[in-house]
């Protein structure tokens, strides 16, 4: 992190990520909130790049901006009334309290940790390392995740299947 460019990039990206994260909760319009959320994701991807985790950064853009944000947009657009306002609910103060608690825990943990810095240079390429780890050491969690996703896919198909399809065919 001695590199001036990296430091500037870090602070810009941190400001962008945190600012838009606050915006997600603060703005009234839900679609604007999704836009802010996309900015947050993009900022996080940038932070990953400054950590020389290029694979994670690109996957962050691909999955979070390209898929999860779209999923949220779909949910908002397909829900009547939800697209209009980010209304004040009765959960407002409990949520604020819980959020504050989480933030306090994280700040405490960050301050308490002894941040060791390593002198080794950044990784050349992380994709192969991650691939090896996923299919070798962490093969079981990887497979469990894929079974879970398969179950989700089958569940989605069963849910949207029109009734009485067998008689038609």
């Amino acid at each position, binding site marked *: 992190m001695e590199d001036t460019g990296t430091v500037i990039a870090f602070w810009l990206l941190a400001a962008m990520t945190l600012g838009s994260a606050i915006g997600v909760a603060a703005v009234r319009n839900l*679609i604007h909130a999704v836009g802010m959320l996309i900015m947050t994701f993009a900022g996080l991807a940038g932070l990953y790049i400054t950590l020389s985790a290029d694979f994670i950064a690109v*996957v962050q853009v691909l999955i979070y901006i390209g898929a999860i944000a779209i999923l949220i947009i779909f949910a908002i657009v397909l829900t009547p009334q939800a697209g209009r306002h980010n209304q004040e609910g009765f959960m407002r103060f409990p949520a604020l309290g819980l959020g504050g608690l989480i933030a306090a825990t994280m700040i405490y943990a960050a301050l308490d940790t002894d941040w060791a810095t390593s002198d080794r240079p950044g990784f050349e390429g992380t994709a192969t390392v991650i691939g090896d780890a996923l299919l070798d050491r962490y093969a079981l969690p990887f497979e469990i995740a894929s079974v879970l996703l398969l179950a989700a896919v089958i569940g989605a198909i069963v849910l949207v299947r*029109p009734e009485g399809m067998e008689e038609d065919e």
Partner: protein
Amino acid sequence: MVLLKGEWYDFRDLTNPVRELLDGLGLPGDVDYVIWSILGAVGILLWLILSVLAFIWIERRVVALMQNRIGPNRVGPAGLLQPVADAIKLLLKEAITPRATDKLIFWLGPILIFIPTIVVFAVIPFGESMALADLNVGVLFLIAAAGINTPAVFMAGWASNNKYALLGAMRTIAMLISYEIVQVLALLGAVIFVGSMRLQDVVGWQDEFNTWLLFVQPLGFVAYIIAGAVEINRSPMDISEAESELAAGYHTEYSGIKFGFFYQAEYLAGFAVAAAATTIFLGGWTLWGLEEWIPGWIIFLGKLYVTFFVYIWSRGTLPRLRIDQLMNFAWKFMLPLMIVNVLVVGTEVLIWDETEASRNVALPAIAAINAALAVFLIVGWARFLGHGTGTQAGRRATLTDEVGRIYYGAEASS
């Protein structure tokens, strides 16, 4: 030509003059890097703008020829200045913002749509050392950049507060998400062969083995070209802005230069997809040793323009698909085929590695197997789904059937 190597007048590599210039100035490394990047970006942008202007004219003339029309021929010799006139017209026209729009997002839409299309060119290798940022996750970067397109299009369609715009945006999202999977799997086949996601390595692999990935991955190439046509919204896949159904889809409410942005972004995305297809499947800047004599970037641009021309050609020839046909094609046809393809490619590479067969045996064998497999899978799967057998009777759409049942009673329908 070897004598020219590395000199500033060696036009085979346009980075040479820049390097000479920067070395002569003797700036510190950081400043050097910044200038280098800016020059590269400006160069790419200039090339893109000129290409877009040229291809607007080419496309209009060529499609006109195909459709037995004349096309623009009044402004300048043979209508050559038509794109310039169009650009000036777009700049001078009033950019109307309807009252009921979401102003901020309406304004952001045309800008956001530009980012993914331009950013792709940063990782494309134009020549041996002519890649602005040769990421080692280059292939994934291409897909991720295309993924940013989706929210941008949705923002534009939603902010317009127009039902046709919103319909177009929703269609685009459905389309892009479905074909993104096909695209990823198509590129995965190529990446398994190369064993690297760095685009320079992909080109290098094709150079080393004296082949194109097109020959060892015919199915992947076809899938990528089709998915690319969907991604860049070109006919026959342009249902998100189908003029006959949706006015102009997600950019219905845009006018003036804002519309111009969408129009340009469409061309730029076309070039981006063509550039990716060229790099990954068509050997990039190599041409079986000819790159020693002809500058690599000229070869690259030649291949790129030919690939892009295929899109123009298909636009002039093929009718537009319906939304349900397009989605069925993605999920029921392309997706199973691509999964089988990835499986077969993985097996082939494993066998190649295990047997350590010489490349002169392995590559032709793999090419023959994959070509046969492509034909077999496409024909076989289409037959299995009931296409092309002549027995597929036209079935009434479900909604029509339901309405008819209610209106005429159960006997009248079916």
